């Protein structure tokens, strides 16, 4: 075999097929769960790692295409791997490596029923995401997209004994299909009646401005529904917590990113000719999504639900980056557009890494204590020191604190928004800073939210008597979390390497990249456009803090002393300290509930004064249900009620329908 013929595209296809095979093997070995957890999941992790390297390779190689000997007779599957696909393959492989390692330990208890079935669904899910990323025709893309939706649906409803999980799965499937229809229609518009659905043909199709805008809107809504964009986000906080934790990590970390991939692929690559009005739309939706997501996250006390709302927020931040890039590109400023695009894509990767880590942490807590409600946790740092450390890294990263990775992408997004003076239209020019203000606000709110999570879950006193002492995560689980935590640190401390890679993506996609000066400033300094404009060096940052830490520690001991004694907490001299006196998660969010009261739909039940067993109840709900979804649901019910009259249940009536349909078709369609 000629090795020069082996290109990234072959590697990616092979690895995805191996994933499919692993799933089948898992199904065949249902009776040997130990084999599945000890061998199938680690093997899946190895494939993931190989895929990550393939992605890295593809980002530095010319695009490679192939035609698969599969599909329908006259409609073969086309695949193609270019720099953009490569980046997302790197994301998929890199993140799912950690998650698969974690799964190997997590599914050992097999609380989710048959591990064989789970292994099949899990690996089909991974493989279909791989195929989404390498598809080069609308046909394969939609097939992969749908199998991704279906396999994840089964994973969401893995614990189907719980009614709520079934309901969450239904909402998820519904929104996923609405999104898929929208995407399909967008491909239909792009295709323009040429009869060829390869992406190459779609690229070549000449569209009028009107039809291009229609295609953009359809694609934006379709992929936005999958990404969890406002107001199509409602499935996300229901479905992500329902799945087993590693699957939640995969869905939040990776699956949402395939929607970002689809959005970038269709808008930048297939439609092309981006207009700044489109960018503004994306930008405003992104800003609204990010603020909304974090405000609702602050109201949650279910850890996984809270993390799901944070995914909504982060999708908003990614959309802000991409929207900015489209605004700049549409107004003819390719360098600023490249900066914003790189910021958006970098945040995509960062969010995948830290959200994966946080969901795995939530899984580790769930396994150790059986708890998902923050208000029942507390003091876990004493039992789960490793998980606590990894979770702290994830929490700091998502709060956009230097020197971790979340800060780098947020910093780049700010830098891109400060390029606003380049824009001609004064309306857009002043909208961009407002979006930056929203971004700053949601970043700061995220910090508050994760102080709440970490403080309530890991610190403080125990709130809940557990039947047994919580056990630290197993070695496999710790390895998975360690991998993602290390990635958070690496992407935060050495951002320059990944940005150089992303520059390749930007070059391939919009034929523009960062200026040479920015790329030539060395690995230590991160420079967006020129060093006079801004620079940031996370390593110097960390080194100075660490050096001062060590210096103070030793100097204080040299000059004075290091004597220490333990005592009861002081707390202004108040003797009885019970865990009931600590803030709960809801208590911590109370200022936000008060300040942003108009955003929420708050239902309160206040007991009557004479009630001998008073119960104070308060629920915070999403207004979107009331104004958008409930009316649509009522309309659908009303319509189906009327259409239902057609169903007579008698076969002769149905034959009559078929007969009438045939006549109509013969008359109108020749």
């Amino acid at each position, binding site marked *: 075999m000629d090795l020069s013929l082996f290109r990234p595209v072959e590697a990616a296809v092979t690895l995805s097929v191996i994933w499919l095979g692993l799933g089948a093997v898992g199904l065949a070995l249902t009776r040997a769960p130990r084999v599945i957890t000890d061998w199938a999941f680690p093997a899946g992790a190895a494939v993931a790692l190989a895929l990550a390297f393939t992605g890295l390779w593809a980002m530095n190689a010319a695009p490679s295409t192939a035609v698969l000997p599969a599909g329908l007779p006259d409609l073969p599957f086309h695949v193609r791997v270019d720099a953009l696909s490569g980046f997302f393959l790197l994301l998929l492989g890199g993140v799912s490596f950690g998650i698969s390692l974690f799964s190997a330990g997590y599914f050992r208890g097999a609380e989710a029923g048959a591990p064989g079935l789970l292994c099949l669904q899990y690996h089909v899910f991974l493989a279909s995401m791989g195929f989404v990323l390498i598809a080069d025709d609308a046909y394969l893309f939609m097939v992969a997209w749908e199998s991704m939706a279906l396999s994840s649906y089964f994973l969401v409803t893995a614990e189907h004994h719980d009614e709520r999980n079934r309901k969450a799965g239904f909402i998820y499937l519904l929104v996923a299909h609405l999104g898929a229809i929208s995407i399909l229609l967008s491909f239909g518009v792009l295709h323009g009646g040429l009869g060829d659905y390869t992406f190459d043909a779609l690229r070549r199709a000449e569209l009028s401005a009107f039809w291009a805008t229609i295609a953009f809107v359809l694609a934006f809504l379709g992929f936005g529904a999958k990404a969890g964009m406002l107001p199509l986000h409602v499935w996300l906080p229901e479905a992500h917590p329902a799945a087993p934790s590693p699957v939640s990590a995969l869905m939040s970390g990776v699956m949402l990113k395939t929607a970002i991939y689809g959005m970038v692929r269709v808008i930048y690559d297939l439609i092309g000719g981006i207009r700044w009005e489109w960018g503004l739309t994306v930008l405003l939706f992104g800003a609204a999504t990010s603020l909304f997501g974090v405000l609702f996250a602050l109201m949650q006390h279910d850890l996984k639900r809270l993390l799901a709302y944070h995914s909504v927020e982060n999708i908003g931040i990614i959309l802000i980056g991409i929207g900015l890039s489209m605004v700049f590109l549409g107004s003819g400023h390719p360098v600023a557009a490249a900066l914003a695009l790189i910021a958006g894509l970098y945040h995509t990767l960062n969010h995948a890494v830290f959200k994966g880590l946080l969901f795995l942490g939530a899984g580790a807590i769930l396994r150790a204590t059986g708890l998902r409600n923050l208000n029942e946790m507390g003091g876990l740092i004493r039992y789960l020191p490793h998980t606590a450390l990894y979770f702290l890294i994830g929490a700091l990263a998502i709060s956009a604190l*230097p020197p971790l990775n979340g800060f780098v992408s947020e910093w780049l997004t700010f830098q891109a928004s400060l390029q606003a003076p380049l824009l001609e239209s004064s309306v857009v020019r002043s909208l961009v800073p407002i979006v930056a203000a929203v971004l700053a606000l949601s970043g700061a709110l995220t910090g508050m939210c994760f102080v709440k999570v970490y403080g309530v879950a890991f610190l403080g006193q125990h709130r809940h008597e557990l039947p047994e002492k919580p056990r630290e995560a197993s070695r496999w689980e710790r390895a998975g979390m360690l991998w993602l935590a290390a990635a958070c640190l690496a992407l935060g401390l050495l951002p320059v390497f990944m940005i150089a890679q992303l520059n390749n993506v930007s070059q391939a996609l919009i034929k523009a990249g960062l200026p040479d000066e920015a790329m030539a400033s060395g690995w230590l300094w991160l420079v967006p456009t020129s060093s006079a404009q801004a620079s940031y060096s996370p390593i110097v940052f960390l080194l100075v803090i660490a050096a001062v830490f060590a210096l103070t520690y030793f100097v204080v001991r040299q000059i004075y002393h290091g004597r220490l004694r333990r005592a009861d907490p002081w707390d202004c001299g108040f003797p009885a300290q019970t865990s009931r006196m600590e803030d709960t998660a809801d208590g911590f969010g109370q*200022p936000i509930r008060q300040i942003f009261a108009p955003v929420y739909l708050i239902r309160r039940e206040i007991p009557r004064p004479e009630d001998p067993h008073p119960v104070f109840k308060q629920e915070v709900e999403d207004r979107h249900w009331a104004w958008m979804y409930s009316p649509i649901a009522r309309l659908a019910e009303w319509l189906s009620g009327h259409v239902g009259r057609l169903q007579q249940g008698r076969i002769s009536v149905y034959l009559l329908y078929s007969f009438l349909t045939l006549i109509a078709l013969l008359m109108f369609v020749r």
Partner: protein
Amino acid sequence: MKQASGIVFQVLQSVLVVLIAPLVLGWVNQCRAWLQNRSGPGIWQPYKVLNKLFHKDAVLAHNASPLFRSTPYILFGCMWLAVGIVPVLATSLPFAPAADVIALVGLFALARVFASLAGMDIGTSFGTLGARREMMIGFLAEPAMLMTLFTASLISQSTSLVTIVETLAHREFVIYPSMAFAAVAFLMVLLAENARIPIDNPATHLELTMIHEAMILEYSARHLALIEWAASLKLTAYITIGIAIFVPWGIAQAGDWVALLVALGVLVAKLALAGAGLALLETVSAKMRIFRAPEFLGTAFLLATLGMLIHFLLEQ
């Protein structure tokens, strides 16, 4: 040679600022005492307090985690880095490119998050109360601060503090309306972030009103000393950021020893004035109810954003 003198300047500046930070606090307290017709403890009092605290044996709650013990050092490190970055005496220092204004705001946020986490670590009622309030102040103050700095960045086309200072210091004197808005917003943020009246009272230990003090209630001895020192560093850092952006004149270039002496004199004068102004402001205003604080900071945020919009609408 230039490199070497730059590093000397850098070390000189950060050590100097770290050493004089308690003095700034002492000066503010002394001015306050004078304004309130008290004789006051003298401007060296903060050093005496620090010395006393370092001598004492640390007392730690039984359930304190390693996070609790390391937080004072982290806070001190963060604040040291902050004063190392802000061009206080001279520009073009070797550390300066390590962080721009956004990173500086991130650094303060990092310190705030660690302080709040430490406040929640023991699990006492006051600790969590303080942490919650501190984060509430923080989430409003942080974006306001960022918007203020963005206004200055847009004028000088750079988020690097050094470039901002050099652009603003070496231009003819023009009053930018946007900078006026930014200055008011910055002052409000400074008061809130440093736990001063009208948001918080640094002198209070009245249980229900404290914010910052409630958070650090469980700390003692050297840990408390480091936190107090870090707090005075933070105040100094904020004042010097304000000086750098709004009244940058008189700052030296790295390597210029004569200018450095001038800059030192100018800095002392500016700090003394700022401290006296702060004391005056604190004397004439009363502390707000805690739920008025969001309004106060919301105003700061809106003023800062308005300043940025004005820059786009009027000054381009």
